[in-house]
């Protein structure tokens, strides 16, 4: 992270952050599930731009490919498969009491997270400014991520494969139509 960030960088950072927040707000307030899903895709694209600006180019690419490209397509696929969007399905917001409670919980959580993010972090742990950018310049965007993944976190990586296998088996078993089902 350079000491004096260019104005262009700062402007774009705020722009994408605001786009992400506005899209997220539109996402939770839209009635139609398809519209909501598309606003969420917009949020994820803005987040990918933020990742790239935070020296995480590879994560940004993965965000677009895996989140916006794969996970959201699965969501849209299920929405269209179930043919949601019927008028009776659309009015799904909870009552006034729930909304007030949700607003209170949201504000309390926001205050908590702000208080936490104001906490001073130990200076000794911090890397010199611009370290991540220099590392990426020296070795490419993938090596700083792939190195720890296949060395220090190899066990977690292997356990992840078991998790994915379990998820695949679970999804197939749950989604399978039983022979007794009429529909």
């Amino acid at each position, binding site marked *: 992270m350079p000491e004096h960030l260019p104005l262009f960088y700062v402007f774009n950072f705020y722009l994408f952050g605001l786009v992400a927040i506005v899209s997220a707000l539109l996402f*939770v307030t839209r009635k139609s599930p398809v519209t909501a899903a598309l606003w969420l895709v917009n949020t994820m694209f803005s987040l990918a731009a933020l990742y790239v600006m935070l020296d995480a180019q590879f994560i940004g690419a993965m965000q677009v490919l895996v989140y916006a490209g794969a996970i959201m397509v699965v969501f849209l696929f299920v929405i269209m498969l179930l043919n949601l969007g019927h008028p009776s399905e659309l009015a799904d917001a909870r009552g006034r009491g729930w909304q007030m409670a949700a607003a209170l919980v*949201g504000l309390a959580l*926001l205050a908590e997270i702000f208080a936490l993010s104001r906490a001073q972090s130990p200076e000794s742990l911090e890397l010199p400014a611009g370290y991540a950018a220099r590392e990426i310049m020296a070795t490419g965007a993938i090596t700083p991520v792939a190195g720890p993944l296949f060395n220090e976190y190899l066990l977690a990586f292997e356990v992840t494969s078991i998790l994915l296998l379990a998820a*695949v088996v679970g999804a197939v078993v749950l*989604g399978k139509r039983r022979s007794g089902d009429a529909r």
Partner: protein
Amino acid sequence: MLAESLFFSAVLFCIGVVGVLTRRNAIILFMCVELMLNAVNLTFVAFAQVYGVAGQVFVFFVMTVAAAEAAVGLAIIIALFRHRQTVNLQNINLLKG
């Protein structure tokens, strides 16, 4: 840009929480959880810039868990829809005493 990233992340996370509390559509609830996971990823990436790039590895694990959760959760929703013809959580009260 650490402070700004944490700000955006906090706001996105809270929007996700409010969405979970105010909506009844099961699929939208799932998407709100995805939004919260994304907010956490933004925090990870922002801290990785200051405390070491290895933090980005955790974003991968979060993405994997999100993918697995989406696959299983949507399969559950499809199975529920087959029984009840709805994904509105108000009509799904099988476990209610």
